[in-house]
């Protein structure tokens, strides 16, 4: 049986761990609330873009084909978006499992977030590591997307996939591998595209707007990932706090039992001693 002192130390150490986890939970909750607001303002903007792109991509154009037509090769790039820090439950591991399960071979990788790089140990296509937060995700996307697009348009890569945690709700984040290039565009507009007047002209419009749209896809995925990360961390820290409570309760029970036992033993010693001097 552990001594009273050992038990007391254990209780105080679990209590201090609990305090840290509670603080982390509070920070993650605040960040999560912030990114969720960002998502709800970002999505209508993204949808407005998507709708216009969908109309234009129905036209047959020389420039549009580069972004829309499936290429024959299978020189594929995977952009993997994981977190920089741990303590976010199964946020990273579920995503890594999803990537491994698909058994697809990617010829090149780009890692955003340290955990993915540490896990897969592949080298990055751009010889650079990327990190991001809800503060700079637009800049990261703006830096990254033209470089990827350039390689894609030069036929150095045939498909671009992105592995990330899709944000669904505070308790659900879905590990997803999605094709970002060539674009997958749902048919959103009911207008026949032939009647649309486009300025400057269709080909130049595509040259201007499609790269912007690729940047937008990447930013929207980054924002989804960071929101999922904060949601996952909030849930993980909430669980951890609750587990700490359980441990504290159990250990306190043990502490009381042990203390009671030692008091009983002492009492018996005193009684025995008193009996002896009689």
């Amino acid at each position, binding site marked *: 049986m552990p001594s009273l002192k050992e038990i007391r130390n254990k209780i105080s150490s679990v209590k201090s761990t609990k305090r840290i986890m509670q603080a982390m939970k509070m920070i993650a909750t605040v960040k999560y609330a912030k990114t969720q607001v960002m998502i709800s303002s970002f999505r209508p903007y993204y949808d*407005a873009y998507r709708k216009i792109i969908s109309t234009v991509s129905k036209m047959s154009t020389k420039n549009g084909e580069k972004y829309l037509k499936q290429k024959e090769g299978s020189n594929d790039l995977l952009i993997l978006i994981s977190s920089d820090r741990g303590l976010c439950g199964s946020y990273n591991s579920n995503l890594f499992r999803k990537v491994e399960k698909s058994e697809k071979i990617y010829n090149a990788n780009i890692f955003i977030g340290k955990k993915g790089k540490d896990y897969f140990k592949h080298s990055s296509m751009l010889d650079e590591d990327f990190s991001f937060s809800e503060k700079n995700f637009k800049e990261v996307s703006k830096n990254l997307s033209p470089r990827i697009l350039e390689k894609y348009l030069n036929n150095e890569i045939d498909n671009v996939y992105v592995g990330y945690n899709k944000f669904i709700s505070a308790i659900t984040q879905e590990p997803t591998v999605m094709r970002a290039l060539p674009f997958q565009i749902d048919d959103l507009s009911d207008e026949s595209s032939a*009647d649309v007047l*486009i*300025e400057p002209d269709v080909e130049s419009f595509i040259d201007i*707007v499609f790269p912007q749209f690729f940047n937008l896809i990447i*930013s929207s995925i980054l924002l989804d990932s960071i929101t999922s990360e904060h949601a996952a961390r909030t849930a993980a820290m909430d669980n951890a706090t609750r587990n700490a409570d359980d441990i504290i309760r159990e250990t306190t029970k043990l502490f009381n039992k042990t203390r009671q036992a030692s008091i009983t033993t002492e009492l018996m010693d005193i009684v025995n001693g008193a009996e002896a001097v009689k």
Partner: protein
Amino acid sequence: MSDSFELKIYTPDGVLFSDSAKRISAINSLGQFGILPGHTLFASDIVSGDLEVINNDGNTISFEVGDGLISVENNNVTVALETGVKL
């Protein structure tokens, strides 16, 4: 024909404008252009610069905007801009 159209201006940080309007003018890669009510189906890029909206009361609202695009469909005008600040 109605004398106004529904205008929605989106940016990544939220909706900048959502109301009916009488006229919107902006700059695309060909130069300055304007949209009036009843415009045909239309799509164009927008380059950074000034964007002006004349609302239903006839007041002019000016914005300083970043790159983006505009589309017109059934008297609904949708503008999506990378950045946008009301002046």
